[in-house]
Structures are given as C-alpha cells and as structure tokens.
C-alpha cells in the first residue's frame, strides 16, 4: 500500500499539511478551550463576587440603619415611648426588619417592635444569655447571627446586634437587636439573569443553603459539602445539580463570625458551551481547511497520479496483449515525456511481438502440420497394424473410412473397391454411409456402381476414377458431374475423393464429404496416403484371394494328382487286364465271320473293353498322367467335325447353332482333347435342356486380350489374341453353388449311374493344359454359357485329320517280347504271330537281357513292358541298346508316370505304345519302327 505514489503523496501531504493543520487546530482548540474554561471560571467568580457584593451590601446596608439609630444621642436614655417611636419609625421606614429590640447593658429589653405582631408592652424579654446580646457586648462589634427561617413562612432572617456606647463613659450603653429579613436575598437570587446551566446560591459556613432561587431547596434544609479548595471544575456540591460537573465560583462574605459563601455554579456543559462551540468552530474550520487541502491535494495528486494510472492502465492492456494501445500524452511535463517514451517502447514491443507472433504462428503451423503428420502417421501405423492383424478387408476399409473422416473432419464418406471381374465400383458392402441422412429409397439405393461400356464411371465419384486423379469440389452440386444424384442422397456441401491405385491399376476409391471447412491439398494428401495403404490392403486381399484360389487350385491339383496317382496305378493294372481282353477279342473277331454266333458276343466284349480303355484314358487325361502332344491346331474343321458328331448323337429337339469365325487363329492343342471338350460340354448342354430340347449355340471368335484384361491379370492368360469358344444352352441353368462345384471330380447332378462326374473335371484339366481358361455363366432357368479361352499361336496351321480306320499290316521279323504278365505275353504273342511275326517271349527282364546278350543280333525288334521286376523296360532297353544300339525297341506299357514317351525316345526307344494295345495300332507301330531301320 505504501508503495503507491498516491499513498506516498498523501502521506507527504498529511505530514506537511494535514498534520500541521490538525496540530494547529488542536492547539487552537485546546487554547480556546482553556481560555473559555478560564473565562467560565472567571465568570462564575465574577457572578459570585457580584452577588456576594449585593448581598453584603444589602445586609450591611440594613445594619447601617441600625447603626444610624444607635447614633441617636442618648438613645439609651430616651423614654420608652420615644424609643418605641424611633423603632417603629425605623421599622416603617425599612421594611427589611421584622423586629427591632433595644437592650440595656444587662440584656433587658427596653423596647421591642415587630412588623407583623403586636407587642404587648408588658412583655419584656431578657436577652442576657442570648448570644445576640453577649457577643456584641464582649466584642463591642456588630454581631451577626446565623441565618434562620421563619417557622410559618420560612422566610430567612438574621439577627444583628449593634452595640452602642455611652460616649461619655465609653461603656456599652445598649444593644440594638434587629431581625433582618433576608427575603430580599432570595429575590435577588431569583431575579438573577443567569446563564443556562448557571445557578447561584448562598450557603452558610456549615454548608446550609440559605438562599436559592428555588426556595424549596432552602426550606428543606439542603446541605452542601464544600470540599477542598475547588479547582473550579469539580463535582457539583449542589444537591440538585443541573449537571454532574460544574465550574464553581466562590465568594465569601464575612459578617462577624458568620461566613456566607456565595457560590456560583455553572454546569460544565453550559459553562464550556462557548468553548465547545469554539472548538466545534475550530474543528469545523480545521476540517474545512483539511477538506480544502484535500480538495487541493486530490486534484494535484490526481494530476500527478492519474496520468501514471492511465499509463499503468495502458500497460495492463498491453500486458493483456493489446500492443496497439497508446498512452495518453497529457502534457510536456515529465509524465508526458514518460508517456512518449512508453509509447515508443510499446510500438517497438508491438513490432517485436508481431514478428514473434508471426514466427510463432509459423512454428505453430509447422507444429500443427507435424502434429497432423504425426496423427496421419499414427493413423497409418494403426491401419498398418490393423492390416497386419486382420485380413478382413471390410474391417480395414471401415477403419480407413473412420480415419479419413477423422483426419479430414468429414461428416460423410465411403471406401470402395473395384471389382476386378466386373469393373464395378463396390461401395458399402465394405463401408456404410455414416449417419442417417441417406434417404435414397428403392432401386436407387445402390452400393455397386458399374462402369459404362467404355469403362468410365459416371457422377461425381466417377470423376476421380476416370481421371485417376483426386477430385475436389467444395461446391460439388455445381459440378456438372453432380447430375444424376439419386433423390434422397445426402446433401453434399463439400466433396473429396481420391482413386486407389496399385501399380497404376485402379483398385478402389476413398471419398469424404461435408467437412465444416473447404477441402484442400492437405486433405488430398491425407487421403492419398490412406489410399496407398488401402491399395496395399486391396492388393493383399486380391493376392489372398488369388492365393486362396491357387491354394484351391493346388488342392484341386493335389486332389487330381492324388486321383491321377491312384488312377495311374489303377490304369496300369487295368490296362494290363484290358490288353488280353481287347487283344483276344480283337483277335477272335478277326478270325470269325460276322455271322458266327459268337461274333456279336465277342464284339460286345470288344466294345466294352474299348469303352473301358477310353475311360482309363480319360482318367489318365484328367490326372495328367498321359502327356498329350500339343500341336498347332486349326480348330475350325475340328469344331465342325465335332459338331457333326454331336449332331449325330443329340436328339433333334436340340437345335445346334454354330457361329464359327473362319479367321480365328490356331491354337496349340491336342485334337482328341479338343474334341473331348466340345463333346463333354455339348453332352452336358443336352442333359441340361432335357427332353424339352433347346438351343445349343457353339461359337468361335478371336478376341484380343490386353494387359489389364482380367483373363490376363487374374487367370494367367497371355496378352494377345485368344480364341474364345462359347458353348451355351437354354437349359435349366445352375445356381451359384452348383456352378462352384461343376469342375470338381465326380461332381454330378445326374442320377447315380448316369454320369461319372468326370466330364467337366476333365474339360477343366484339358483347358488348363492348354494354358487356357474356362468360365461359366449360369443362372437357374437362364441356361448356361461356357466360355473357353485358348491362346492363339502363330499363323502356321496344320490341318490334321484324324484317321481312325485302316487294316493291320504284318511281317516276319523276329520279335523279343518281354512282359512280366503272362496273360499279356500270351495275348501279344498270339497277336504278333497272327501277324506273321516270330515271337520270343520272356517274362523275366533279366533273363531277357541274358538272352539278348547271348544273341543280340538274333532279334529284329524288342517289345517290352515298362514296369517289371528286376529290370524295368527302360533299363532293359538301355542295356540292350548298349549291346546293340540299333536294335529297335518299342515300349509297351499300361502306365508309367516316370517313363514318358519323350524319355523313351531320348533313350533310343523307337516307339511308345500304351496298353491296352489294339492290333492296328500295334502293327502300325511295328512297321513304323522297322521301316525306319
């Protein structure tokens, strides 16, 4: 508090002005009070003196009358009558006496007169023992008696005795005793013009009040106690004081032995009223002076302090940040100079603060950017973590959308992906429109948006997809592409979308809308970063799908391999079993005429065995155990041929509509397998259409496959021209579940025994072997369409016509026949010998080698089985070729997984033939081998 200038100035002022004024005022007041008190004391003294003087004058005047009488010559010697006359005249003259008495020197009454009472002449009193007589007699002085009071009226009186002497003798001649009526004293006090609070009374030496303006006070014998010499201000001794404290003035009247005190008592509060008033005046004056001083001081101090306060106020405003505040410059004095300096300082400070603020703002912006970056990175990290933790693309998309909305403060958004098959933008199958503002109803509510025929997308969300660039519209509804928004769509006030690209391929889209402020580059950057992660997720998902597909294919393949292995194993044995059946039945048929009774039986046996052989072949084909030689194949004639074949096998209720592009290029394929494809699909189509019939469309086109074509990107086809074989029917169609299983082995919808369930599996396998792709489109009641895509090879074409007829040609060469199955050895021996050959058979491969070693040139041809104990056919052939390199060897086997035809050829084996062997094929092979020699 004391640090403030105002306080210090005030204190200084108080010290310099207020205190002196107060001191002076107090001094004056004290002096005045003292003077007033002295005055009051003096006044009371004067009053007491004056009253005392009047009383004394009265009494002494009355006594003087008596003295005058006593001066009457020979008073004591006058006749009684004369004395009476003198006394009566005196009494009549001076009504101040009640009674006058002349006493002789012995105290005997000579005469007595009374103002009111009749004095009987016979009544003579004796005053010899009365003090009124004795005292003056002794002292020869006037005796004043005590003040007494009349019994009836209470009037005061005093007895005075004046002795007179005989001038001759000087002896006391007599004493005149007078009773003085002191009522006048009462009147004197009653008529005193006293001041307020003042009273005057007379007390005798005993303190008895003998006179007061209030007679009752006297008449009730009021006693006062005169204490020590008063200091003129003491407690009132008056029994009925007007106040507690009073100023006393005292005057003594000495009347002989009597002493009367004239007391003037002035109540302090009245006596000193002037002093008090003066003190009040002085106090007021002091206060006025103080007030004046304060009034002077306040503005003066204010003129000093106020500018400083304003300066302080300005400083506080500046402290709160308002640096533009300027201090008021009220004058050219030191304070004005200070204000100028302050303003300069604040201007400088403002400038510095502005610069600092700018820098801080920049740093703040940087920090915000960093924080945003951190937030984005955290979001990305979180998303990455989520991506690592979960492979659910929907969950990730949800998370991405949430982050996108959070980072762009958007109310709405979606995350979509491009379906690679259809090219549709698929949206809230993954995410949902946030909020409930979406009021799209009915068919307009779509979550999947297909591209146009030219691959572009419509509407606002299509802009980014088409351009593969971010699209920002802070007034989207004004954009031309906003046309076509379905009714009830959320009102778009701001719209931002970025395409999701992976390796430049459009895989998805992230879009946000309705942020409270305009979208900008920062938001685009944020979404692009999210889109990168999303692209990875989509790619991973795609890869996962492909992986799963591959795994599925692998499983399928493994399954097929297992089946193939099983089939292979069975096929070999089965082929071995079929070999004698086919061989002997064929042999028997060659030896029988058709009208033989057993011919038809044998024919049936042969046909059955032949179907069994085909079945084995299909199985082996499906299991890939039988490698077919793919050749460049012009498929148009094959297709026409196969259609003919189908036509002949299908009922007329099935209308076959071919549409074959003659310009379609050749493929790399196996004739048989190609036919199998067409035949299987055609047969299935027939089964689907049933008895009601329908239309079977078979078309062939050449289509170009681009690098982005899904057939290329997803199904492994090579970019370039591809033959598209379409086989569609108007059958009953299939549901999705059925469609998903049609290529599974043994899956059939036919009744048990009506189908093996291997047809489409085989077709699928064949096409895969051809490095092609098959797709199926089917819906219940809508028919089924198979599309087979086969890569087209170069322009060289080879027309290959399958030849299936011809007679068997024989020979005479010597053939070494090795097979561990005796039945087969016997059947082949019979077959070969039928053909005229010389056949040496052996069931032991090692024995066969010994035989050959003994006479390697003996034989013209070796026909051996492959899987044999001791030495396999291949080992045997190798050993024989080592002995005789030019020996023609034909490997005849039912199944050999490891020993392929190519391997056999590489070893020098001239021919490779699969069991069951048919005669024609065998003879042709033998001739072909022997001819090359």
């Amino acid at each position, binding site marked *: 508090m004391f640090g403030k200038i105002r306080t210090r100035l005030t204190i200084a002022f108080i010290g310099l002005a207020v205190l002196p004024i107060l001191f002076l005022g107090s001094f004056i007041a004290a002096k005045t009070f003292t003077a007033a008190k002295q005055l009051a004391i003096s006044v009371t003294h004067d009053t007491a003196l004056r009253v005392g003087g009047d009383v004394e004058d009265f009494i002494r005047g009355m006594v003087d009358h008596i003295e005058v009488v006593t001066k009457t010559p020979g008073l004591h010697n006058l006749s009684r009558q004369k004395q009476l006359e003198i006394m*009566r005249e005196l009494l009549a003259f001076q009504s101040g006496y009640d009674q006058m008495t002349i006493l002789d020197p012995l105290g005997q009454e000579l005469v007595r007169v009374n103002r009111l009472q*009749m004095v009987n002449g016979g009544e003579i009193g004796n005053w010899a023992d009365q003090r009124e007589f004795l005292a003056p007699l002794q002292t020869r002085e006037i005796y004043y008696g005590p003040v007494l009071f009349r019994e009836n*009226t209470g*009037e005061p009186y005093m007895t005075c005795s004046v002795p007179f002497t005989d001038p001759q003798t000087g002896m006391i001649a007599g004493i005149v005793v007078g009773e003085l009526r002191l009522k006048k004293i009462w009147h004197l006090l*009653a008529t005193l013009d006293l001041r307020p609070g003042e009273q005057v009374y007379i007390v005798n030496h005993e303190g008895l009040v003998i006179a007061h303006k*209030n007679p009752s006070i006297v008449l009730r014998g009021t006693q006062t106690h005169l204490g020590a010499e008063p200091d003129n201000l003491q407690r009132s001794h008056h029994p009925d004081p007007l106040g507690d404290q009073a100023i006393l003035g005292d005057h003594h009247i000495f009347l002989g032995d009597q002493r009367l005190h004239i007391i003037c008592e002035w109540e302090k509060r009245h006596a000193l009223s002037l002093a008090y008033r003066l003190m009040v005046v002085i106090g*007021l004056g002091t206060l006025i002076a103080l007030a004046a001083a304060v009034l*002077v001081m306040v503005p003066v101090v204010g003129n000093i302090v106020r500018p400083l306060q304003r300066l302080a106020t300005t400083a506080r405003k500046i402290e709160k940040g308002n640096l533009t505040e300027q201090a008021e410059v009220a004058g050219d004095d030191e304070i004005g100079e200070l204000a100028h300096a302050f303003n300069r300082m604040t201007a400088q400070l403002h400038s510095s603060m502005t610069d600092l603020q700018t820098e801080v703002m920049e740093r703040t912006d940087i920090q915000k950017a960093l924080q945003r970056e951190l937030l984005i990175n955290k979001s990305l990290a979180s998303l990455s973590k989520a991506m690592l933790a979960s492979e659910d693309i929907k969950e990730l998309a949800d998370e991405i959308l949430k982050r996108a909305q959070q980072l762009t403060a958007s109310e709405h958004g979606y995350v979509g992906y491009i379906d690679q098959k259809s090219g549709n933008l698929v949206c809230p199958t993954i995410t949902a429109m946030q909020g409930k503002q979406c009021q799209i109803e009915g068919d307009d509510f779509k979550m999947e948006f297909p591209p146009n025929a030219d691959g572009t997308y419509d509407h606002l969300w299509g802009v980014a997809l088409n351009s593969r660039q971010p699209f920002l519209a802070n007034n989207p509804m004004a954009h031309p592409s906003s046309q076509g928004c379905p009714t009830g769509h959320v009102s778009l006030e701001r719209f931002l979308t970025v395409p999701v690209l992976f390796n430049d391929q459009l895989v998805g889209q992230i879009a946000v809308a309705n942020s409270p402020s305009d979208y900008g580059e920062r938001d685009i950057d944020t979404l692009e970063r999210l889109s990168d992660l999303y692209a990875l997720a989509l790619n991973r998902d795609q890869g996962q799908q492909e992986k799963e597909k591959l795994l599925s294919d692998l499983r399928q393949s493994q399954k097929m391999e297992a089946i193939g292995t099983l089939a292979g194993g069975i096929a070999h044995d089965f082929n071995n079993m079929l070999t004698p059946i086919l061989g002997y039945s064929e042999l028997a048929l060659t030896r029988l005429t058709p009208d033989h009774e057993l011919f038809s039986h044998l024919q049936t046996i042969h046909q059955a065995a032949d179907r069994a052989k085909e079945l084995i072949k299909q199985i082996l084909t499906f299991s890939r155990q039988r490698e077919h030689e793919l050749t460049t194949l012009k498929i148009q004639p094959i297709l026409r041929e196969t259609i003919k074949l189908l036509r002949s096998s299908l009922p007329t209720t099935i209308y076959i509509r071919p549409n074959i592009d003659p310009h379609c290029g050749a493929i790399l394929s196996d004739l048989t397998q190609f036919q199998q494809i067409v035949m299987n699909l055609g047969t299935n189509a027939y089964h689907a259409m049933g008895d009601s019939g329908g239309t079977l469309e078979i078309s062939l086109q050449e289509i170009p496959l681009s690098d982005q074509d899904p057939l290329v990107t997803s199904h492994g086809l090579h970019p370039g021209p591809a033959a598209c074989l379409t086989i569609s029917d108007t059958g009953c169609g299939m549901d999705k579940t059925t469609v998903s299983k049609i290529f599974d082995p043994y899956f059939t919808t036919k009744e048990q025994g009506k189908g093996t369930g291997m047809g489409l599996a085989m077709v699928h396998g064949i096409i895969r072997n051809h490095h092609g792709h098959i797709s199926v489109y089917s819906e219940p009641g809508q028919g089924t369409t198979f599309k087979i895509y086969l890569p087209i090879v170069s322009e060289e074409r080879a027309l290959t016509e399958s030849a299936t007829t011809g007679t068997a040609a024989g020979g005479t060469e010597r053939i070494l026949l090795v097979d561990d199955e005796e039945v087969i050895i016997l059947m082949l021996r019979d077959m070969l010998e039928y053909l005229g050959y010389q056949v040496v058979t052996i069931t032991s491969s090692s024995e066969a080698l010994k035989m050959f070693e003994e006479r390697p040139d003996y034989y013209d041809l070796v026909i051996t089985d492959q899987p044999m104990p001791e030495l396999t056919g291949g080992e045997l052939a190798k050993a024989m070729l080592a002995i005789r390199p030019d020996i023609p060897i034909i490997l005849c086997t039912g199944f050999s997984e490891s020993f392929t035809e190519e391997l056999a050829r590489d070893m020098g084996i001239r021919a490779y033939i699969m069991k069951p062997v048919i005669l024609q094929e065998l003879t042709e092979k033998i001739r072909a081998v022997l001819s090359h020699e």
Partner: protein
Amino acid sequence: MKILHRNSFILIFICLHLLLFAFACDKQEGPKIYTIGVINFSPAAEPAYEGFRQGMEELGYGEGKHIRYLYRGHIADKQELAVEGKRLLAQKVDLIFSMSTPASVVAKEVTADAKTPVVFGPVSNPVASGLVTNLKHPGGNLTGVTFSMQEPKRLEFLQAIMPSIQRICFPYNSKDKSPTLNLERLRPIARKLGVELVPIPLHNHQEIDTFLAHFPGGFDAIYLPTDSLMASRTSDFAHIALAHKIPLSPPQREGVEAGGLVSYGFSIFEVGRQAARLADQIFRGISPADLPVEVTEFKATINQTTAKKINITISDSILRQAVVIRD
C-alpha cells in the same frame, strides 16, 4: 485546475453555510409568549391585576411580546368563575393568576387535573382555604401571596391613632372564610387592647345596603376585615364612617385611598407585583410546589384628609410610620 477551483468554491460555500448553521443553531430560540389567564371574584382585587401586569413588565415580560393576558373581568358568581376557569384551561394558558380567595379556590378546582400553575393573590389564608397545605411547602400547583398576618397590627395602629376607641364595628361576610378567620384572630387581640369588637354579618349587598342605611350608632370605628364583599363596598363604608366621623380601617391601602382613615396592610397592587415575581420564578422553572407562599409587605397608610374630616389629629411619629395620603 478548473475542477480544483470549482471544488474549492463548493467547499467554501458549504463550509460557510455549515458555520452559519452552527452559529445559527447556537442562537437562542425566539422568546416564548406566555399566556396568563386571570380570574377574579372581587372588583376590589382589580388593582392586583394591574400590579401583576406591572410586575411582569418590570421582570421583562412585555405584554404582547412575551406575555398575553386572558381576563374577562371580575366574576361574582362562583359557578361562572368555574366556567371561566375551565375556559382558560381550554385556552391552554401557561399560568392562572387568581385574585381573591373564591377565585383561587375555583382555580384550584379547575386545575386539579391539568396541573396548570396558579398564582393567587391576595388570599387571606391559603392554608385554611385549602389552597395550599403549607405556606413553606405549598405542595401542589398553587402558590401566591397572602396577607393573613396583619390584623393585630392594624388594630394596634388604629388604637395608636385613636387611643379612645372602645367599640369597633366589624362587618363581615360570615360565609366567607377569610373574614371569619380575621374575626377569630382579632378577638384575643381586641381583648388585649381592651376594645370591643362587634361583628356584623352581612352576606350580600342588600344586607350591606340595609346596614349602611341604618347604620347604628355607638361605634367608635369601623374595622373592615379582609373580606371581598366588604372590600367591594369600602367606599360606602368610608362614606358612612365619615358621616359618623368615625375612623374606618380597611385592610388594604386602596381602602384608605377610598376614604378610610388608616390601614396597616398590603397594597393590592403590590400584591399583584409580588405575585408577578412568583409567576416569573415559575416561568423560570421553579415548581409552584416549591415556592413558599409569600406574605405581602405591610405598610401603614393614613389618609390625612379623612383624619381632618373626622377631626383626628395624628402624631408626627405615627405619620412618619405610614404612607400619608393627602388629597
């Protein structure tokens, strides 16, 4: 600075007014105007009213400035006196001055509840009249001036003037306490002085008229007591006394002035002046209960003219003892 000047001026202005106010407060309030109601039974007491007014004037109560009087004149009927007394009370008088004993008795009665102070005068015997309980301590709201002590001296003085007086006519209203008391007090004095006091009860003016018309002889003097009725007929008695060449001794000086020979008593006028002093003390704050009843000053008064008419020679000594009235 302007503000400073203005503030200073305002301050000075206020302070001056404060000072003036302070001093003004100190100033005594304007003088109170006292209202005094006057009731009187006897026309003879009228001089007391004059003396009262003069006395008040001398004491500083200027009529019209400090005091006003409500007086309708003497009322010889006591009931009407009571009505007048109540009327005065209704006027909220500050004090009632009652002249004569009947009027004072009425004043006491009407002020019994109001406690309006009453100063009476002259009243011969306030205690016996019941006006006060004690001359020294009146005790109530009445005080005043009495004169009840002068009869012996007056008789003595009469005898001193005419030592040959033997038989004195004493007319008095026997229904009035005052003369009755006078008579009782005088009887032993008369015996001491060797004179015969012959009381003549007269109760109304008709009886007085009849008595005066047939004044009996054989009286050496007529001694009028302090009797309002007789006092109202002093001049008639003076005339009769003169006619019979006998001295008349009225109780008050006015009676001597009216033709009586000698009086040793009071002046009704002076009684009024003395009563004024009591009124002044009451106005100064002393309660009537504390103001002793005062005895009026007695003075001998001799009408020298009457003396000559009735052929009485009065000694120089006696003349020097009295106030001598000469026409």
